[in-house]
């Protein structure tokens, strides 16, 4: 590797100020050259594959859709630059789109909540288990990643299908109370169950990483000072685990907000979420400008929420440092 070397020109400039021009800063200082060497490639990658496409998308959101989909020419026959805010106006004026957004946020919120409720006891169990079992349990948590995402969703079709044991059991139980049979598959229920299933590891891992660092001594002290089991959890363990909760919530909420495969496969006709809507605009309706608008709104919403989570998390962390 290229070790940073002192710049001979810079050294001379320091020892003989008379030769150097006033106010001139030595360019390409060794430390900054090394920095660029390390951070350059990933930066370039982000520019090419994130910043540039985002710019293209922003530009597309102001253009007019072509007659048969895609984009109309940027400069029309009269030689006029064809840029407008029609798609934004459409998003703002047709309430159905905002409603889909709110519904998506609702699903993402519920997913985050259920993931938290399920992951917290699991992460606690793993953090408190002996080192020998800990690695095995962590492996089990990430094991689902070893099979394909779509295959796992299709597996839920079988589990929730009308002829599966689960549906028969549920509908049998409902029949005993005189209620009619309900479909499990192609419903909001199926979407939520699968959303929770898919995102659970993203909540477990940051929570575990946090809980694993907790000191038993603090809980002993709390107990010594008169706190019962519930008070020890609520006053000590939970507040100290908040950075892990925020990290997990961000990792679950943001991808859950934009997901389209799960409602596509497991959802009913009413379970169109923002992800499906965007996919529709690009692949079916082929209204690229409007799809771009929806994507931008989603990205901005995700960034704002991530920013809030990071801010709250950092505020908590600085207090605990």
């Amino acid at each position, binding site marked *: 590797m290229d070790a940073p070397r002192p710049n001979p020109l810079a050294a001379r400039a320091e020892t003989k100020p008379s030769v150097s021009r006033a106010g001139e800063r030595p360019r390409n200082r060794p430390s900054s050259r090394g920095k660029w060497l390390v951070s350059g490639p990933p930066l370039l990658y982000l520019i090419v594959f994130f910043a540039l496409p985002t710019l293209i998308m922003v530009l597309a959101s102001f253009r007019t859709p072509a007659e048969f989909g895609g984009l109309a020419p940027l400069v029309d026959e009269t030689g006029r630059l064809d840029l407008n805010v029609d798609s934004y106006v459409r998003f703002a004026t047709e309430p159905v789109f905002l409603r889909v957004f709110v519904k998506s946020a609702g699903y993402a919120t519920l997913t985050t909540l259920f993931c938290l409720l399920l992951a917290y006891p699991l992460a606690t169990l793993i953090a408190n288990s002996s080192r020998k079992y800990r690695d095995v349990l962590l492996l089990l948590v990430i094991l689902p990643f070893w099979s394909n995402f779509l295959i796992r969703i299709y597996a839920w079709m079988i589990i929730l299908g009308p002829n599966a044991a689960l549906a028969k059991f549920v509908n049998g139980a409902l029949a005993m109370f005189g209620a009619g049979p309900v479909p499990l598959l192609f419903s909001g229920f199926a979407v939520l169950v699968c959303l929770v299933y898919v995102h659970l590891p993203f909540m477990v891992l940051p929570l575990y990483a946090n809980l694993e660092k907790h000191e038993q001594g603090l809980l*002993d002290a709390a107990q010594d*000072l008169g706190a019962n089991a519930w008070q020890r959890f609520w006053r000590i363990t939970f507040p100290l685990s908040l950075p892990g909760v925020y990290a997990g919530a961000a990792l679950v909420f943001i991808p859950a907000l934009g997901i389209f495969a799960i409602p596509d496969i497991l959802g009913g006709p009413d379970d169109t979420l923002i992800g499906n809507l965007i996919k529709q605009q690009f692949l079916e309706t082929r209204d690229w400008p409007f799809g771009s608008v929806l994507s931008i709104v989603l990205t901005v919403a995700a960034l704002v929420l991530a920013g809030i989570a990071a801010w709250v998390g950092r505020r908590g962390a600085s207090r605990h440092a």
Partner: protein
Amino acid sequence: MALLEIQGVTRRFGDFTAVDDVSLAVEAGEFFTLLGPSGCGKTTLLRMIAGFDLPDAGRILLNGEDLAARPPELRPVRTVFQSYALFPHMTVEGNIAFPLAMAHVPAGERKARIEAALEDVRLTGFNRRYPHELSGGQRQRVAIARALVTHPTMLLLDEPLAALDAKLREDLSIELINLQKEVGIAFVYVTHDQTEALALSHRIAVMNRGRIEQLDEPSKIYGFPRTRFVADFIGHCNLFSGPVAANAGDVVTVDVGGLGPVRVAARSALGSGASGTVALRPEKIRISASAPEDTPDNHYRGTVQDLLYMGDVTVYRVGTPGGAVVETLLANSQSGRAKFFEVGDAVEMSWPVAAGHFIEE
């Protein structure tokens, strides 16, 4: 009735007996210390008093009530942990308010109680600080204030000064003594540091391998150790062992290999031939370059083998012609004078019969 009574308490971990049939009583208002090397069972005993561990046999009574059925949160004792265990997400005030909230002290009363506790440990005005903004000594005081704010029956302290540097330890020791006097609550203090134990305690229980070797006032523990272990563990001590050569009723003569007969004032039933030990503190030995003018009870010649200059004193290790090594000590009372003897100097050692202490083992 004593405040705390420990009756025949035993605690085993597998094959290891951490606490072995220990009985003791702590009086109200007493500063009581459990002293011993690591692994002697002192911390296990403290944890059983606090309720974090339960005895396999025996009883622990507080004010006459058996504590066995009470979990830690329902025992009227408080612990100051070695790590202080301050809650990092709470301010000093939040930490001290915690036990008050747990005890359902009315909110209006809490403020005054917190202020009083902070005043007790001289931390007035630190209410809004977080633990990570405090020094080690300040954290320790917050831990004490937090433990005292609910006026417990007894305070348990688990090596609270161990993590601090020597100078601070001395200052805080003095504060601890004053604080204990002020609040009048019984302190049970666990330490492996004999200096701390001697300086702080009303009474000390010296523990070794799960048992109490000696339970007495500090001066008695230091001056009249009952066993070789106590003599060796508390301060520096020469231990001269050998068969009893003569027992004159008030003076026992022990035949010490490499040194010769050593005479010590003692009332002992041991007859000739039984083995005994003379414990002799280094500072009780008089050493000089020339033979003493009087005729001392014990008098030996030797050569300085090693010396350790400690600033206030110098320790001389003197070897005898027979091969014994005696540790002696001289105060460097004259300023500028570091040592009286050099390695290789011939010296005379002497001490009266009353200087030593006879141990029957």
